[in-house]
């Protein structure tokens, strides 16, 4: 039987946690100063716009990093303000409505002034397309009935609408259209957005809602109806960047400036179609676009660009599950995944167990500690990740921090339960035979609570394996990356290549802990 130097254990724990925290911060301040970091959202259009900038800059010999698949506008915005990314493609409507609603901005120039003065953020000229809500009609029918504006619809009361549920429900969607254009059509059905295009194609319905850069516009030959009363908010695509980029990479500014006004509505629809329908890689789509223009400076830059275009292989991805297993990437993502789970779980164990003991030993504070851990648990995982961005930026650190917080409750609660459920007679015997507080804790209470604590750690580990898939939303990689890209590209095979290993991992972790429990916790 070992007799532990219990005080030392706590000191070591403390040192360990502190050093972990330092590790986090040192990880965090990585290479971002030496290159231009481009961010993009987890929608194809944003990735293409990011890649266009990336290709253009790198063809001009500038060091660039693309952090793609970042979850939400909020995440990109906060990362930009923190300096984790330098530039990313945004929409004017998103800036007005979602990111800066408190300033009640009206138009582009107000946005530009506010961004520059208040946030130290600069803007380039808009790309030239808008990604607005819109109503569309088949080109054929539009031509036949001479419909080109939304207000033309009033003349045809029998026309049939097939609208996505979301559009029907939201106040700035169908209700607004009906009210402002005074449309009283009786045939309006709600359906899944993906189905509306097919229904339109099969002439089951006549008018659908869409986003004005959807790839399907070109695929199904859809005519977008002009919003002649201007009721839909304007979502112009635009690069926004940190002003310190002008100082760090002055050469990047005129290069990126060339993209202003260079992507027309039809061009953006076409690019989306190349990526989503023809399933080309976004990088190649970006190169295709750039090679049409001689935007790059004369000389080597452009030559490089053309060479790169040639060297990218056709990347058609069908529904073949076996032929294109990305073994190397799955392995890499699994490692990233395990890293996230392991570090967060380990640090959580070192914090949560002492916290659980404390909760059990100080009855006055016990309920509050459990309560706080419980509240953290009720925060939706995505929201918790987003909360972490202003504190830790993007990447591994905020994900580990969020997973750490998620692991706390099961471990704290089980430690607390394990210790407080020790029978009074045993607890009194321990004091009665003369064990002091720490001896009693180390030799009687912790060993007796170990089963409960262990199962708390197991719960936390399994939850973490699942939740870590969300880490990719804030750029932490992991198996969630495959799922995100798969969802975005509508590629079931890729989704499965992320989801199946994640599920297998969860089962393995569970099995490992079960084995450990049988092996080591027998009394």
């Amino acid at each position, binding site marked *: 039987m070992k007799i532990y130097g219990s005080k030392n254990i706590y000191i070591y724990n403390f040192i360990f946690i502190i050093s972990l925290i330092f590790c986090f911060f040192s990880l965090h301040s990585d290479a971002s100063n030496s290159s231009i970091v481009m961010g993009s959202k987890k929608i194809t259009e944003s990735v293409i716009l990011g890649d266009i900038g990336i290709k253009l800059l790198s063809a001009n010999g500038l060091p660039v990093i693309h952090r793609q698949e970042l979850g939400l506008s909020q995440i990109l915005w906060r990362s930009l303000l923190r300096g984790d990314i330098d530039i990313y493609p945004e929409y004017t409507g998103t800036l007005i409505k979602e990111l800066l609603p408190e300033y009640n901005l009206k138009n582009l120039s107000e946005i530009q002034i506010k961004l520059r003065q208040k946030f130290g953020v600069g803007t380039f000229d808009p790309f030239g397309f808008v990604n607005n809500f819109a109503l569309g009609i088949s080109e054929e029918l539009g031509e036949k009935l001479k419909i080109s504006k939304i207000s033309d619809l009033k003349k045809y009361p029998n026309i049939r609408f097939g609208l996505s549920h979301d559009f029907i429900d939201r106040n700035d969607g169908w209700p607004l259209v009906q009210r402002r254009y005074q449309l009283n059509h009786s045939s309006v059905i709600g359906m899944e957005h993906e189905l509306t295009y097919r229904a339109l194609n099969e002439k089951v319905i006549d008018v659908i809602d869409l986003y004005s850069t959807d790839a399907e516009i070109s695929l199904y030959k859809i005519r977008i109806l002009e919003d002649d009363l201007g009721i839909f908010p304007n979502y112009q695509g635009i690069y926004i960047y940190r002003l310190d980029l002008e100082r760090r990479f002055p050469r990047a500014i005129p290069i990126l400036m060339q993209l202003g006004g260079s992507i027309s509505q039809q061009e953006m629809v076409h690019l989306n179609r190349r990526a989503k329908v023809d399933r080309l890689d976004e990088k190649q789509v970006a190169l295709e676009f750039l090679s049409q223009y001689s935007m790059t400076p004369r000389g080597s830059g452009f030559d490089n660009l053309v060479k790169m275009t040639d060297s990218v292989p056709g990347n058609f991805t069908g529904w073949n599950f076996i032929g294109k297993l990305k073994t190397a990437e799955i392995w890499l993502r699994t490692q990233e995944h395990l890293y996230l789970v392991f570090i967060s779980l380990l640090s959580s164990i070192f914090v949560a167990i002492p916290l659980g003991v404390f909760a059990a030993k100080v009855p006055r504070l016990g309920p509050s500690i459990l309560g706080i851990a419980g509240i953290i648990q009720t925060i939706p995982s995505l929201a918790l990740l987003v909360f972490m961005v202003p504190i830790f930026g993007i990447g591994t650190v905020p994900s580990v921090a969020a997973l750490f917080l998620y692991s706390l409750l099961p471990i704290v609660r089980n430690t607390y339960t394990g210790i407080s459920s020790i029978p009074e007679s*045993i607890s*009194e*015997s*321990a004091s*009665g*035979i003369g064990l002091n507080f720490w*001896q009693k804790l180390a030799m009687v209470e912790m*060993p*007796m609570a170990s089963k409960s604590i262990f199962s708390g750690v197991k719960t936390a580990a399994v939850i973490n394996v699942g939740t870590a898939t969300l880490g990719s939303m804030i750029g932490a990689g992991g198996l969630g990356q495959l799922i995100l890209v798969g969802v975005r590209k509508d590629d079931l095979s890729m989704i499965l290549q992320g989801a199946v290993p994640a599920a297998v991992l969860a089962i393995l972790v569970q099995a490992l802990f079960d084995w450990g429990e049988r092996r080591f916790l027998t009394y």
Partner: protein
Amino acid sequence: MGFKSLNSNQQPNLPFQLDSEKVKLKTSLVTVDNLSVNLGDRAILKGISLQVESGECVAILGASGCGKSTLLKSIIGLVEPDNGCVTVNGVVMGPNSSTSLRRKIGYSVQDGGLFPHLNVLENVVLMAKILKWTKVEISNRVDELIQLTRLQSELLRRYPAQLSGGQRQRVSLIRALFLDPSLILLDEPLGALDPIVRSELQEDLKAIFRSLNKAVLFVTHDLSEATFLSNRLVLMKDGEILQVGQMIDFIRRPSDAFVSKFIYSQKNYFMELIQ
């Protein structure tokens, strides 16, 4: 013997100055002075006073909930008195008193209170290991005590869950006796045992108490057991001591109607005694 024993007339070094009023003359090993303990607004003990001398065996009797166990816990310092005090060997006991004082008292709770994650041997030697006894000292002491308590030595490797109730009591007793305490507190040592095991263990306990010649304070609700094992009975009711003395005093000069009621309620034994 090589292990540390506490001589009853040796005053421990105290880190503080004792209030001279609180410390009785050290003629008594245990002095309970006007002790009151409340649990919330319920009074568990109401002004108990009691003295226990070295070498005597005192049985604390009473119905369930009369405060017997709380009295024992106060003596070993697990319970904070609301009024009055307990001194053992001249030192005031309480939750803040040093754990080293508790090591000079042997304590065994009703069901044995053995640690389920440790085997019998680990249970009984835990404190001695912490106090850094040598292997030889420990193994001698184990041998000595398993002989005294008549515990089969093959049980030493078993876990508490694998023991019978009587075996558990014997192990608990070994653990209580291990550091050779000058005072032994037993809470219902035979409480949950069947009659055969019980009478066997009663005999053994009597022999052990006699051979050790230490102060023993034990709690029971069984009159025959109390009379059989002790030289002095203390009868409690509702947190108060009704009467202290011999069985014969209880019968001849009951201080309260409850004393007679308590004795006559255990008629079988009483009849036996008359015969």
